[in-house]
């Protein structure tokens, strides 16, 4: 015999703890028969009544979960928040850390730009692993009903209410992204400048001779600027000390650039072979002047702007 009721019982009992299976089976069968009888007594035919009764009882897995008092959630409200906090905490730095280490190791082995790929891949794997194992741990805690002593919440845990910040997060992010892009460009143009000679070989825009000192020095200044942006955000507003550091960093970048441009050492001499316009000394002077003036203008404008902000925020 394999009626719908038999199949329904089998589906329900499958996930009910074994010791009570037989008893639940007899009771549930009797209840279903009673319910069907209630409908046939009022004139319904048996097949329709059975169908309707089983539909009313609903998904057998849900019913079984109710019998077993089992939770129909992976992580419930008791642990969800702490799970989320831990996950965020771990994901903020571990994948990036591991990815960076892998990249550095690959670079040390002389893989050049091929080192970025494995670094990113490893970082993503680490993120997936962290998420999986953390979630699994919490799902097990949720199911074993282990009484984990979560620290009680107290008012002392309240974070300091955010004061109106003089330095918006968006500005900090934009500034850091700009600096990273610039560092990336300085490095990338050596290998991939999209300017090619007649043989299709890549021509760096900047003089490769600068790699002996000036380009690394400029990159160091840019990295220091990125760190400065983060520190500035933590401080939360402009101070005259921050202004001083900012001015120093600006000078440390723009003065070498201006000097190199004036002494015609910035651009790759090979470019002149590719573009005849650049071969002319006068033209090179004009280009140098444009670079000098625009660098100086940007630097001065930035310093004036910063000075105004600092005065307003320290007032």
């Amino acid at each position: 015999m394999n009626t719908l009721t038999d199949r329904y019982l089998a589906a329900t009992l499958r996930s009910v703890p074994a010791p009570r299976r037989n008893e639940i089976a007899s009771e549930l069968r009797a209840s279903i028969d009673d319910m069907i009888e209630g409908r046939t007594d009022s004139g319904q035919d048996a097949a329709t009544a059975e169908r309707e009764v089983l539909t009313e009882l609903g998904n057998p897995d849900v019913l079984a979960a109710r019998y077993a008092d089992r939770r129909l959630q992976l992580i419930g409200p008791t642990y969800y928040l702490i799970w989320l906090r831990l996950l965020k905490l771990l994901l903020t730095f571990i994948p990036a850390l591991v990815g960076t280490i892998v990249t550095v190791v690959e670079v040390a082995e002389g893989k050049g730009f091929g080192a970025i790929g494995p670094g990113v891949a490893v970082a993503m794997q680490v993120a997936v692993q962290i998420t999986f194992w953390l979630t699994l741990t919490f799902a097990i805690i949720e199911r074993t009903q282990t009484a984990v002593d979560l620290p009680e919440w107290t008012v002392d845990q309240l974070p300091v209410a955010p004061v109106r910040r003089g330095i918006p997060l968006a500005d900090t992010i934009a500034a850091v992204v700009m600096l990273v892009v610039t560092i990336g460009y300085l490095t990338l143009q050596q290998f991939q400048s999209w300017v090619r000679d007649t043989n299709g070989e890549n021509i760096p825009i900047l003089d490769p001779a600068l790699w002996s000192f000036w380009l690394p020095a400029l990159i160091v200044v840019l990295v220091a600027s990125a760190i400065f942006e983060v520190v500035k955000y933590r401080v939360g507003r402009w101070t005259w000390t921050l202004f001083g550091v900012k001015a120093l960093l600006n000078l440390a970048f723009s003065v070498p650039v201006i000097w190199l441009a004036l002494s015609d050492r910035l651009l790759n001499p090979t470019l002149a072979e590719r573009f005849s316009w650049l071969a002319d000394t006068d033209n090179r002077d004009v280009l140098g002047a444009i670079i000098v003036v625009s660098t100086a203008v940007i630097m001065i404008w930035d310093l004036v702007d910063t000075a105004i902000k600092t005065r307003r925020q320290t007032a």
Partner: protein
Amino acid sequence: MVSEDVLRTHLQELRRGTVVVASLVALRHPDYGYALLQRLTDHGFPVDANTLYPLLRRLEDQGLLTSEWNTEESRPRKFYRTSDEGESMLNRLLDDLAAVQTSITGLIQGVDR
């Protein structure tokens, strides 16, 4: 106009605990699952079968109900009855239900307690 969904959710919340109270009261006279379901429905406690049957088992596990198999009728049925423990808990629940009713009435009439 309040949306039907919102109304239904609130009614469900309001009714949730009363099913336990109603079952404990009704089972002062022993009864089996389906008959209890009918009696509760007749008395204005509509309850889903898939909620009531597991609930009876849970109350039994908690010692608030006792059960006994009756094999005299056409099919064997499990009869539940409110235990002594269940009775004393029921009294506490009924007191609280009455207190809720009193408080609501007080609030409606604007009388300070």
